[in-house]
């Protein structure tokens, strides 16, 4: 894999680790109201705290919350929602895509018609309508993202599997009378993985971005579990009065996460595409 690919993978792993260790890394628990001091509200970056002598390196928000701590906790929620929904959508899409490719005929026609209709409808609108129905919540947004994204994996898995199923090793496995699930999971699926991983990295970025957008619109996560998107939304009203840090820093962190995912997807694509491998 290219240097850029490795770089983004390592940075992404570091961010994941920071998110996992948020309770130990953050200087305060931003959602424990007892540790907040309203007198520290809306301090610019680098300000000293009034009573306990700590420093707010990235400033504080309207409740006197340390932005750095809030961002670590927000990253935790954003990544958890993104990774979980990506894994679920990948599983659902791959199962349906492989079934469509293997069975062909009406199974294929049925699944692919649903995929076509779904893909003609932008993911954000589908997720928006679903969330409007169910109301905010972590499990609900994961479901909405799953519903909005499975079709991409199904289409990719099907087209990759169709190519693989024509090959001699699948014919040989059939001649050995291996059970269907074993051929699909042990033989066909591993050969489809490079393309699927590229799509997964791209869709992970899309899922995290979509969650942030929906939370910004007030439809995603409840105020008690603020992801990066909600932190950015909270700072919107202060932006016009020049208190930029409440929105800008969570936004920058979000952009770093998304850029890493897209760089990784780019590197994976170049690796999977033999024509591009020499570049």
């Amino acid at each position, binding site marked *: 894999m290219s240097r850029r690919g490795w770089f983004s993978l390592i940075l992404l792993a570091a961010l994941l680790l920071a998110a996992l260790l948020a309770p130990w890394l953050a200087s305060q628990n931003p959602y424990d109201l007892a540790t907040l001091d309203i007198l520290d509200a809306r301090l610019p970056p680098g300000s000293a705290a009034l009573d306990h002598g700590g420093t707010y390196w990235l400033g504080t928000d309207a409740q006197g919350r340390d932005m750095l701590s809030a961002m670590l906790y927000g990253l935790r929620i954003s990544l958890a929602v993104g990774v979980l929904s990506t894994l679920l959508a990948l599983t659902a899409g791959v199962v349906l895509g492989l079934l469509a490719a293997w069975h062909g005929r009406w199974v294929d026609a049925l699944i692919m018609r649903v995929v076509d*209709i779904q893909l*003609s*409808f*932008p993911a*954000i*609108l589908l997720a*928006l*309508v*679903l969330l*409007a*129905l169910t109301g905010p919540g972590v499990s609900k947004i994961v479901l909405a993202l799953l519903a909005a994204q499975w079709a991409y994996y199904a289409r990719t898995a099907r087209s990759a599997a169709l190519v693989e199923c024509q090959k001699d090793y699948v014919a040989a496995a059939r001649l050995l009378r291996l059970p269907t699930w074993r051929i699909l999971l042990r033989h066909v699926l591993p050969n489809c993985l490079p393309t699927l991983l590229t799509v997964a990295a791209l869709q992970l*970025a899309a899922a995290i*971005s979509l969650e*942030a*957008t929906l939370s*910004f*619109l*007030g*439809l995603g996560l409840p105020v008690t579990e603020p992801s990066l*998107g909600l932190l*950015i939304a909270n700072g*919107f009203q202060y*932006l*016009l009065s*020049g208190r*930029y840090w409440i*929105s*800008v820093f969570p*936004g920058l962190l*979000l*952009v770093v996460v*998304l*850029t890493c*995912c*897209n*760089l990784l997807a*780019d590197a994976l694509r170049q690796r999977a595409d033999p*024509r591009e491998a020499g*570049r």
Partner: protein
Amino acid sequence: MSGFMIRRLIQALLVLLTMSALVFVAVFAIGDPLALLVDPQADQHDIARVRRGLGLDQPWWVQYARFLGALVHGDLGRSFVHGEPAIRLVLERMPATLELAVAALLIALLVGVPLGLWVGLQPRSWSARLIDALSLLGFSLPTFWVGMMFIMLFGVWLGWLPTGGRGETTLWLGIPLSIGSLDGWRHLLLPALTLALFKCSLLLRLTASATREALRQDYVRFARARGLHPARIVFVHVFKNILIPIVTVSGLEFGSLIAFAVVTETVFAWPGMGKLLIEAIGQLDRPVVVAYLLVTVTLFVTINLAVDLLYALLDPRVRLRSRS
């Protein structure tokens, strides 16, 4: 060609019918609008009267049958909040959204395609590498955050451009548009740029990879061997062939621009139908949500149909395949 068109038309109508059923079933489950409409101090009798008045006391299948019947007449019910026909509310806001989406698509095409062509032709030059890196960044920036940063930079710090609203509109054939006045242009610029950024990166990357692909083809080598001028090879032979994916993708992405306008309109307080949708969801205004969804689905189906026809015009292989 006409057989192809008729088949696509029937398909489009079927999708439209399916979507109308799905939209109704989905939206039927949105919470009880009465909680919002009726004064909390009203008694049971008043609540029942309002419920009957809105037709909400009927079982869901009666409501759906009425909905379908009314749909044929272009009547999607009255907005619970505004008291006006929902479809009229949505259609009134549509020109603002379409204006924004068209402006964004034009920006994306005018910037993305030439830059993508350059990156595809000169992949090793430092400028192409820079553009490529920037396009990846543009691909990763969430629309709503970009909008906020634009507001901060151009609206608050520099004070060059207004931060919200549509500005002065002028009537063109009875439709209010912002592009008629300088004030309107100033209001349109930031939201259109925000909305365009992602699509611009997408078109840039698509054009670049299509160009690289086209340059490897035999017809390009042959044209070179014939000694044709490099500009002619690029602008006639290569460009004609990369036009097919560009047209398809920009057509399909136009639908997604309309969808993402929901976000941009909310950030910039642009009075389009996306902002109306977010307000309607917040107020549990079911008829407006249904009307918005049906209008956008109709738009998407029409766009897809137009893209398919254009595709058949551009690519003779599609026409020939459908004839046989």
